[in-house]
């Protein structure tokens, strides 16, 4: 492949949306109310739409017979490059919202910067996605506030979710060799520069939501290198079910 770094860089971005989209999609028919059910699946739909744009571009760069579907469905666990945060399960609604919120704040800041990419396809995709993700961020922030500032029980559950998910936040700002190469070329976003603002924004909102900002400084990592938590395997067996059962089937 001529531009392997760019290919890997795109997968790094897209896999976050793919796995988070699958997680949100799991709530279809299981949301706590009709409105939230529809909201979660709408977010899922946006994310899958974004993934298609990224994977179509990646398939073009790969330049072989690979299609967007192959990239989405035919990789093994170790080949997915998403951060650990997005693969965490829907333990309860507070976890789904907490995961979404902790990712959305990052996602919005990331896409805002990606719009300046020297790669015109990536900047066009970012330009499109940033509008959608700003709605996601409003939705998840609102819910963190509602649950945090709600009843004693909702506050406790939201706090638990934030405490548990916190350990996966630092990885958002790690760089892979492909990231570094792409930043040097003016294509990629230097995520290390987003970190300070991220924690400031997240902390402010948590405080507003009557929640404590976790103090733990011990963070999990590995997703970007393909070393995942056990949850990803189960998620993939669901996501890839049709391709495993009926290889090469088409919709």
């Amino acid at each position, binding site marked *: 492949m001529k531009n392997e770094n760019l290919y890997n860089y795109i997968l790094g971005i897209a896999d976050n949306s793919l796995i988070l989209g699958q997680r949100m999609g799991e709530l279809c028919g299981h949301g706590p109310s009709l409105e939230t059910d529809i909201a979660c699946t709408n*977010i899922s739909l946006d*994310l899958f739409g974004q993934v298609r744009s990224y994977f179509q571009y990646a398939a073009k760069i790969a330049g072989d017979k690979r299609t967007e579907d192959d990239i989405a469905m035919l990789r093994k666990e170790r080949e997915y490059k998403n951060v650990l945060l997005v693969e965490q399960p829907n333990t309860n609604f507070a976890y789904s919202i907490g995961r979404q919120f902790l990712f959305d704040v990052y996602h919005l800041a990331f896409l805002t910067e990606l719009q300046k990419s020297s790669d015109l*396809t990536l900047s066009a995709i970012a330009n*499109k996605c940033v509008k*959608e993700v700003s709605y996601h961020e*409003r*939705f998840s922030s609102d819910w963190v506030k509602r649950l945090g500032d709600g009843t004693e029980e909702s506050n406790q559950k939201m706090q638990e979710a934030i405490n548990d998910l916190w350990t996966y936040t630092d990885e958002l700002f790690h760089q892979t060799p492909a990231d570094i190469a792409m930043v040097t070329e003016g294509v990629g976003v230097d995520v290390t520069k987003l970190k300070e603002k991220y924690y400031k924004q997240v902390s402010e909102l948590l405080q507003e939501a009557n929640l404590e900002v976790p103090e733990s400084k011990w963070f999990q990592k590995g997703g970007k290198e393909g070393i995942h938590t056990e949850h990803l395997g189960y998620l993939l067996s669901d996501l890839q079910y049709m391709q495993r059962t009926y290889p090469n089937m088409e919709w």
Partner: protein
Amino acid sequence: MTTTEQNIDEILIPILEQVSDPEIPVLSIMDMGVVRSAVIKNNIVKVEITPTYSGCPAMDVIGDDIKKALQEAGYESEIDLILHPAWTTDWITPRGRKALEDYGIAAPLNAEADKEVLLNGKRIVKCPQCRSTNTRLVSQFGSTACKAQFQCDDCQEPFDYFKCLK
């Protein structure tokens, strides 16, 4: 910079106006502003369309419908999906906005007003049934990616609001 220029051969306009959004059948794709260019080159019509939302499932159907409409008018066509410049609700024509309202969907306000509505709960979206502005946001996400759910506190009707996208 966002350019809003469209490049559509005049002879093709009436054909494209017959194609509608499968999820909002009263709205033609021309009035929605998703057709960015349509030109005849060597007897083949090259059409460029842009999605309203990345995950909009209507885009594939719209592409097929355009192909069909052009074929019936005697043209072969090629459809391309372009992402830049990104679609905005500003591209919905005045006629399109009216069609939305008549269909029972509140048309998008401007970006500032949209924020006031979705973030601060301001009551300024007009109910498409009774025209009252005594309406409230039920959910930021509605029946499709492009809409939010509202309810009118005067006539009690629930309705969709086409979210402003800029």
